[in-house]
């Protein structure tokens, strides 16, 4: 937590254990390898439609992914590949979903923007800006009513702080003291417009937290130690009945908004400055400096690459979905029948 006058200015949190650090590193490296492959496959025309990559934002997803318990719930946006992998969803069905194959996580019925895996408590990726903040509240409300020690985490972008649903959700979460953590990934850009040019406060989430009686929490979203520490403390607070948190994690997307967007509307020096703060090499250097055996890191990197290769092969080998799926699962009887 920090004052909002400068950014990112969070004091260095206590270092997590060596085991946690290795898990954070592995998680980020897997996400990076996966997203790079997804981009290549998009350029090859194998990933159709659209996809919104999380390249550069891995430290946020990894920090929370490692801190979450299996019973906790994740809600995220269309920029949700990282968050899905962070819940332990296997790569092959995620890759196959992007490619519209039968093996896909939802057999191709959702696509890149709607990754969902209920068994992993990955409760969905939502593509209407803001809506899922209200839905995440419902899961947290349910945990509270059922007396279950579950916490809901809800990720969204900086642009989401300007839609009405953000306000409705934050207020209700605060009034009902819900066990929920809202995480704003402030990557400075909405689609093609800088958030600063359309927002009344300098910190779109943290600057609004006091309006809901919440502490302003601003963290370095490119530092996995910082995201893990913020996650752990917000989760603990929620689990202990302390109510919601709103965390603004400052980060940057390395690529464009979606598809093959090169992101050319962003100033070169801004891009260069953030690339220099790439969460993965900087974290690697920190681990090496802390005495972690570099061979172990190399093995993590190789394993991630192999996992992505294997997932790609499996996805490519999968046929297109069964066409009967068009008419399935509109209603609970498994079909689409609206008449008697």
């Amino acid at each position, binding site marked *: 937590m920090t004052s909002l006058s400068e950014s990112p200015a969070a004091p260095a949190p206590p270092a997590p254990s060596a085991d946690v650090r290795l898990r954070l590193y592995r998680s980020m490296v897997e996400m990076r390898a996966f997203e790079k492959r997804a981009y290549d496959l998009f350029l090859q025309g194998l990933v159709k439609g659209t996809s919104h990559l999380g390249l550069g934002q891995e430290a946020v997803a990894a920090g929370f992914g490692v801190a979450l318990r299996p019973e906790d719930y994740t809600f995220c946006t269309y920029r949700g590949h990282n968050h899905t992998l962070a819940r332990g969803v296997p790569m092959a069905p995620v890759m196959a979903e992007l490619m519209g194959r039968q093996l896909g996580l939802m057999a191709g019925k959702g696509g890149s923007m709607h990754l969902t895996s*209920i068994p992993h408590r990955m409760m969905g990726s939502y593509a209407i800006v803001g809506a899922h903040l209200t839905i995440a*509240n419902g899961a947290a409300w349910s945990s509270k*009513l059922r007396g279950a020690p579950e916490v809901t985490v809800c990720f969204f972008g900086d642009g989401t702080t300007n839609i009405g649903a953000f306000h409705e959700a934050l*207020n209700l979460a605060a009034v009902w003291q819900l066990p929920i953590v809202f995480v704003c990934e402030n990557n400075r850009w909405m689609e093609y417009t800088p958030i600063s040019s359309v927002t009344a406060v300098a910190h779109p989430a943290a600057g609004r937290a006091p309006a809901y009686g919440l502490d302003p929490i601003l963290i370095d979203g490119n530092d996995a130690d910082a995201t893990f520490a913020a996650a752990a403390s917000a989760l603990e607070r929620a689990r202990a009945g302390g109510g919601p948190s709103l965390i603004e994690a400052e980060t940057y997307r390395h690529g464009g908004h979606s598809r093959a967007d090169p992101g050319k509307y962003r100033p070169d020096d801004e891009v260069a400055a953030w690339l220099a703060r790439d969460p993965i090499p900087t974290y690697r250097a920190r681990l090496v400096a802390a005495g972690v055996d570099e061979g172990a890191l190399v093995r993590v990197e190789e394993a991630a690459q192999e996992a992505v290769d294997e997932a790609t092969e499996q996805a490519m080998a999968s046929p297109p979905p069964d066409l009967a799926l068009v008419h399935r699962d509109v*209603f*609970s009887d498994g079909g689409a029948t*609206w008449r*008697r």
Partner: protein
Amino acid sequence: MAEMTYRDAVAYGIAQEMARDPSVVFLGEDIGSAGGVFKATVGLQERFGKGRVVDTPISEQAILGAAMGAAMTGLRPIAEIMFSDFFAVCWDIVANEIAKARYMTNGQVALPLVIRSGNGGGARFGAQHSQSVENWAMAIPGLKVVAPSTPSDVVGLLAAAVRDPDPVLFFEQKSLYATKGDVPDGELVDELGKAAVVRHGPAATVVALAAMVPRALAAADELAREGIEVTVIDLRSLVPLDVTTVATSVAATGHLVTVEENPRLCGWGAEVASIVAEENLFDLDGPIVRVTTPHVPLPAADALEDAALPNVARIVEGVRRSLA
């Protein structure tokens, strides 16, 4: 058997389900300590507590989002949207989120939830508090759409909606709240998607919904005085739509008249008419006639609103046009 108002039947029906199933929770604006702006939910918070009957801020998206998230994680929420006109401020949650979740996730997500709402005109509330929006709901794949016309249907269909594994939009017609009817004793559970033939007659089939049912019955009385006996069907549910009951009746009468409170374009009667035209054309001995509110926003003044909503005279005239 007890006589009760349509209004009291709402609280009675909710109580039946909340008493039976502890996972049923109820949320909305002014529903708890105030007992609802239409006094349709009086006593529920006292009986079931503030944990299960929850007053919310004026945040329709947050209400429906909370209902959805709770339904995804083991509860069976009933949410109230005070006036159905307010669906316009939370339609994203209804149409993009709730309706599509099961489909987009390839069946991973079930949403056993009910959204109740005060629907329709007749109260002189003007154009933003009087709309009949059941046809909006019907246009979205993934939603079930119910609109009861009697107190016993309120109880029975509400129970069926709460127990249904799919999201159900439950339209309570505001102009019916003060009407009375008998509600059988004991647990009452109806079935979604079953129309009721509420009057039998060979001359024509008049299909109506919610507040239009008593008007259609009054029109049938008037026609009967001239010796024209018509069948009146209370559709009760738009999704699922009981095509069989309508088609069977049209096969016997040869004439179809729909009576809709929604404005004309893309009203539910258009769908019923198109199905009958496509599948039962040769059963018809006259044109299909739709009696609807004209394609206008509803005016406030009593004289104007009465002139806009379908009334007995227009229904009688509609039947005559089909028979001519």
